[in-house]
């Protein structure tokens, strides 16, 4: 415990790094994944912009990337990370890999949220002369908002988990702290405190997400 208290500044920095990685990643992955997910949904044959070729390409790409374990994904995208961020280590490199991996996960979540929308509602919008882009922004997203928020909350938890793994490439954060100051020194209190912190973080995110979703769903 004394050891933990003497390193409290490192712990606080780690919380900051985790929050940084998680918040930036969920923003970037949220936007990329939303675009990709909407792309998957609208290009499915029979849907708004049904196009078998585009859909198949998107679908296969997502299916290839998504099952790759994150630790391997980090290594696999390192050339790209290097090209974009300029380095393959540190919080920014970790955030880049995190955002990319999460974007693919988000895309499926988005697609699934949109599948629940009544096709008739989209037809009603088409019937009053709305075009595809307008329908995406004024029908698909608002009508799917409740499930979308729950989906993003789910992804938030996943990103917290992945951000801990990102510690492996010097990403810092709570996962890194738990390993280097905790388990590697057999200092279990440090591990427990760090894990408890992560749990609190996840709980807060889940509560917030649920509350927002309830509002969107008016339940």
């Amino acid at each position, binding site marked *: 415990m004394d050891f933990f208290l003497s390193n409290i500044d490192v712990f606080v920095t780690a919380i900051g790094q985790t929050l940084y990685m998680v918040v930036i990643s969920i923003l970037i992955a949220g936007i990329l994944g939303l675009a990709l997910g909407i792309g998957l949904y609208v290009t499915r044959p029979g849907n708004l912009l049904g196009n078998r070729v585009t859909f198949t390409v998107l679908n296969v790409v997502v299916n290839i990337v998504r099952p790759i374990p994150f630790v391997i994904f980090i290594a696999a995208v390192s050339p790209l990370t290097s090209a974009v961020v300029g380095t393959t280590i540190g919080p920014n490199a970790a955030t880049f890999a995190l955002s990319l991996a999460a974007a693919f996960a988000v895309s499926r979540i988005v697609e699934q949220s949109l599948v629940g929308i009544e096709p*008739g*509602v989209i037809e009603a919008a088409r*019937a009053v002369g709305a075009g595809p882009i307008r329908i995406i922004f004024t029908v698909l997203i608002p009508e799917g*908002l409740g499930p979308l928020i729950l989906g993003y909350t789910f992804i938030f938890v996943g990103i917290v988990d992945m951000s801990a793994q990102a510690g492996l490439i010097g990403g810092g954060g709570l996962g890194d702290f738990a390993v280097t100051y905790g388990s590697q020194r057999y200092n279990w209190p440090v591990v427990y405190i760090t894990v408890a912190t992560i749990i609190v973080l996840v709980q807060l995110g889940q509560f917030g997400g649920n509350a927002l979703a309830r509002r969107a769903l008016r339940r």
Partner: protein
Amino acid sequence: MTGEALVRLEGVSKVYDTPAGRRTAVDDVSLEVQAGEILGVIGYSGAGKSTLVRLVNALELPTSGRVFIGAQELTALSERDRRGVRQGIGMIFQQFNLFRSRTVAGNVAYPLRVAGLGKAERDARTAELLDFVGLLDRAHSYPEQLSGGQKQRVGIARALATNPRLLLADEATSALDPETTADVLALLKRVNRDLGVTIIVITHEMDAIRAIADRVAVMDGGRIVESGPVYDVFAKPTTPAAARFVRSVLQDRPSPETLERLRQSHPGRIATVQVAEIPGFIGVVTSAFAEHGVTADLIFGGISELQQRPVGALTYELAGDDAAIDAALDGLSARGIDWNEER
């Protein structure tokens, strides 16, 4: 009919490629709808009615044939231009298809947003429309807080937002109870009469046709098998498919199963008489039988009213000797009454 038609379909077909093979939903349909009329399109489910109505506002494009709205050929326009045409055509749906994420007012204002109206204009028009359908006090409710009839009234207000000349109603009352159906039909009638909106009503319900349609087209297997004034089609269907549909909605003639059952308790000859517009019709029929000493026992039948005129059929068991029965039936023919013997 002349070139004044608001809607004109010329040899329109719609074929879908499904995993089970090609399916022709609409098969070479030509149709005209005059400005100001209410056309009912009836037929069993799967007859192609819903596809047909979606061809009218180009939600679906025909595989072949041409669709005109006024002088504009919808099938020759770009998708962007078709969107403009759709703004002038309202549509209401069986499941209402309201936006759950929007209030009643938000739903009604949506087409106005699409049409590019400013907020002040949208608000004024929305209030006007909600007043017209009697839901001004529910402007800030969400769809799930409304009853089915109220939802459909919101649907109608939304469909009328842009002052369309044409309203398409796709099974608009099929999800409603009979009383609410009557309310919604009365509202549609008012839309037609007071606002001069032409309406195409897709339905499999007799009530909807009876209450509001001027003219009716019967669809079967993707084709329009018969069309004409409502009374003519229902009182004297000329094609077997139309007759089959009319019988099934009027329920005025015994089905083969019912006839089988009737025969067990009524072993005599059985004849069905078509109700005709003759003063004292039932008395005329009864006395035609009595004249020949035939006892006629009414065992099945139904008479309803269409456009203030009677329509239906009565089924009698006839007792007497064969020659007398034949003479009595000939007597009916002589009075201009159609009949057929059930065998």
